[in-house]
């Protein structure tokens, strides 16, 4: 979803070898700082031009906010270890819990036990009841908006007649008994009863949506930026949207209970009021307090040429995000198998890559699953990066449709996407399509795709995705399982109304595979079916991230396994 992820924490040499063999895993430009023992002290500056929508743990669904929130002030039952370089595959480790969870044989019951000595910033104990309460907030979909809905999907609570959960969250309390039955607490132990086998549920709970929340501090929407810390830092003053805030040490945090966070800086100043262009000018110039700065904003195209000047302070890594096209199976044209195949064959990925900034920014792909995930099937491009309009035209002529075939293609409005789609239109039109491009403002883009009326208006949609955690179970089902997506209210995230019973049955079968490697391989096989059998998804590119940090910063390494950004848990300031 908005989040990202990557190689399963279940890191194995084989996984690393697979990813390396793909040739598209993380790489560095002279790399980040060499590993060095961090020193306590100093102020770390986090510079950004991206406004944080939420800090309420149950509402956070943006990768960087999940990672930074977790590292600074929102501990979860389980989390990801820290990397020692930009390419290290990190693994799932206990955080608030004593281990990474115990699963029943059928994969439907998970149990976690809290460590002793874990505390909130006011010194009170973090309890299993706090975890239970935190997760319950996800069900208050009228107040706690924006977060992931894995709890609603997985926890065994019956659905109401309208398809929503029978439990309405801790404010309305409707169905509270159902929730209490599905999530039980005994002392420091919390047990989840799931409605299906979820063999990687311990990956799911690494998201801050599964973090504890102290009921007495719950102010609903007013809690959006009211950070109540369980981690090494606490908010000093207020957080202001589009500006940021400052964090100081949380004296109630006990490092003995935490193997993840090094918490080197004494203070963290988070400034999200900048523009990416300005902040990269500053980071590359490396003056004053900017020497102590990191960012999570990807370098803008205008800064790419100057990143070379930040020697030893830059990282170029595979981002978690894959961009793809979705044919609309409700459209007369795209319900035709040959038309979809023709579109896939004619797609000119090289034009897209050139328009968005070149190979430093994006790499062509024909897999929905990101190369950083173990399930990545590395499906060959159907006709090279440039596509084959001539062959596509033959297919279109054989489709029974009258040429030129009019199609409308939507994309999220952005200057470089305007150019990218104009360039791809040339190839599609050469194949016999008559392409109409529809640019939709970013803020309403996905809402428009999910509106029922869009099914009869558009033929092809652009979309983007990053796995929520390092399993393709957060790629394939959320996007192409029609049963959890398509309702009378719209297609959910299955924007193209792909609805295939065989495919859904294979999803169920894959979910039940206990062995991680076999399960991920099965997800990869389903990816190949989507892109090369059904043409329900036409992958375009995997995006790259380019980051720069200040010269006084040590231990800034991209945690690709977690979310793909510098991991603040190990960052220190040279004294």
């Amino acid at each position, binding site marked *: 979803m908005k989040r990202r992820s990557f190689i399963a924490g279940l890191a194995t040499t084989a996984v690393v070898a697979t990813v390396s063999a793909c040739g598209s895993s993380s790489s560095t430009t002279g790399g980040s700082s060499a590993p060095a023992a961090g020193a306590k002290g100093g102020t770390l500056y986090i510079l950004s031009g991206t406004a944080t929508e939420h800090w309420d743990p149950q509402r956070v669904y943006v990768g960087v906010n999940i990672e930074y929130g977790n590292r600074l002030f929102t501990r979860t039952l389980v989390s990801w270890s820290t990397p020692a370089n930009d390419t290290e595959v990190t693994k799932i480790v206990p955080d608030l819990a004593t281990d990474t969870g115990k699963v029943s044989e059928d994969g439907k019951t998970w149990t976690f036990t809290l460590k002793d000595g874990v505390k909130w910033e006011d010194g009170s104990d973090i309890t299993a009841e706090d975890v239970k309460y935190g997760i319950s907030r996800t069900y208050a979909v009228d107040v706690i908006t*924006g977060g992931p809905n894995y709890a609603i999907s997985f926890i065994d609570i019956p659905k109401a007649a309208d398809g929503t959960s029978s439990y309405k969250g801790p*404010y309305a309390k409707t169905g509270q008994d159902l929730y209490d039955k599905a999530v039980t607490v005994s002392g420091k132990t919390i047990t989840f009863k799931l409605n299906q086998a979820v063999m990687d549920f311990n990956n799911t709970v690494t998201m801050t949506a599964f973090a504890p929340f102290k009921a007495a501090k719950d102010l609903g929407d007013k809690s959006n930026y009211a950070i109540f810390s369980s981690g090494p830092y606490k908010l000093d003053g207020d957080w202001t949207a589009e500006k940021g805030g400052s964090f100081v040490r949380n004296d109630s945090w006990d490092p003995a209970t935490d193997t993840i966070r090094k918490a080197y800086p004494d203070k963290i100043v988070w400034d999200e009021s900048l523009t990416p262009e300005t902040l990269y000018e500053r980071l590359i*110039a490396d*003056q*004053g307090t900017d020497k102590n700065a990191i960012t999570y904003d990807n370098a803008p195209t205008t800064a790419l040429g100057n990143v070379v000047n930040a020697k030893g302070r830059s990282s170029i890594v595979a981002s978690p995000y894959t961009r793809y096209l979705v044919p609309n199976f409700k459209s007369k044209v795209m319900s035709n198998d040959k038309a979809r195949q023709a579109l896939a064959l004619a797609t000119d990925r090289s034009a897209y890559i050139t328009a968005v900034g070149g190979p430093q920014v994006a790499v062509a792909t024909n897999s929905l699953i990101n190369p950083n995930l173990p399930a990545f099937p590395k499906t060959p491009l159907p006709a090279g990066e440039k596509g084959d309009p001539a062959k596509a035209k033959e297919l279109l002529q054989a489709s029974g449709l009258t040429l030129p075939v009019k199609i409308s293609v939507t994309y999220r409005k952005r200057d470089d996407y305007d150019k990218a789609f104009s360039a791809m239109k040339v190839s599609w039109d050469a194949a016999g399509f008559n392409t109409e491009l529809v640019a939709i403002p970013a*803020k309403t883009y996905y*809402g428009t795709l*999910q509106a029922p009326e869009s099914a009869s208006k558009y033929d092809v949609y652009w979309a983007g995705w990053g796995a929520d955690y390092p399993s393709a179970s957060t790629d394939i089902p959320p996007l192409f399982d029609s049963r959890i997506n398509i309702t009378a209210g*719209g297609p959910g995230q299955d924007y193209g109304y792909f609805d295939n019973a065989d495919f859904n049955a294979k999803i169920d079968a894959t979910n039940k595979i206990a062995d991680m490697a076999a399960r991920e391989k099965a997800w990869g096989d389903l990816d190949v079916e989507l892109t090369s059998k059904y043409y329900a998804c036409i992958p375009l590119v995997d995006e790259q991230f380019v980051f720069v940090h200040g010269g006084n910063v040590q231990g800034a390494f991209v945690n690709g396994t977690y979310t793909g950004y510098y991991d603040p848990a190990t960052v220190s300031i040279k004294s």
Partner: protein
Amino acid sequence: MFYYIVRRLASVVVMLVLITGTTYALFFASPLDPAKYTCGRNCTPSILEGNRKALGYDQPVYVQYGKFLAGLVAGRDYPDNAQLRTDHPEQIVHCPAPCLGYSPSQHRTINSMVGDAWPISISIAIGAFILWMIVGVGGGIIAALNRGRWPDRIIVGLALVGFSVPTFFIGLVLLTFVAIKWGALPIPRYVAFTDNPFEWAHNLVLPWITLACIFAASYVRLTRAYMIETMSEDYIRTAMSKGLGKWRIIFRHGLRAALTPIVTAAGLDLGGLLGGAIITESVFSLHGLGFTAVSSVTNMDLPVIVAMVMIVSAFIVFANLIVDITYGFIDPRVKLVA
């Protein structure tokens, strides 16, 4: 004079009501659905409807507008949900009068947003205003008194350059070279005047120069033109022939008469700027009223858009009023008729 001011204030209120009403009407006449902008990617029809209801977008425009006006007088509670108010009063945000509204994208009242933003905009506007008035009016007087000679040509030439270069370019050059590369001045951030007056000024020097550049250029030309015109008036010749001193003639008789149109322009410019210097604030990432206004348009944040339109209008309307009143003091030829 008193009745004149009362009459003008009454017209200001009517004008603001009309402007905000028009903004509401225009916003809802557009094909965009403001509730969609609050829904995020996990948007389901039920969440969309829930948001629409919580934000009051499900009600007729006149009802929403009526509530907005009532909030200005009596304050409001958010969200507008009686059940939640009863069951969970701790979750209700109270916005005291004059309540400008609540921003769903910022999760706070607009009063609080404006409270944060206005000192920034006022600081930028006042400093730049002083700078451009000194440079612009001073330069204009020197150019007028040296008409046709080299000081005139240099000043007019520089003014032309200043007028031609866009604000964002001046701002970016100053930021990139003076602040980031050379480190001669700090990268601007807002420090409250009351916290540290020196840091306040030190941090705002670059925005002041940026903003003043374009205004100073036009004031040089304006002042020069009016000074040349005034200095060729008969009464100036009379004053000279009576043997009055050169500077007394320039400042007492020439500049005072030339000032009237300059004050008009200055008042309106300052009034407009108090509502936010959009480009300067954006270039230097200073989150004043201008930045807030742009951000609200980008996010289709209706309550903030309406509030910003009202604030900017109010500044301009009041600036106009002050200018009109000031006329009477500057130029004895202007008399107010009650």
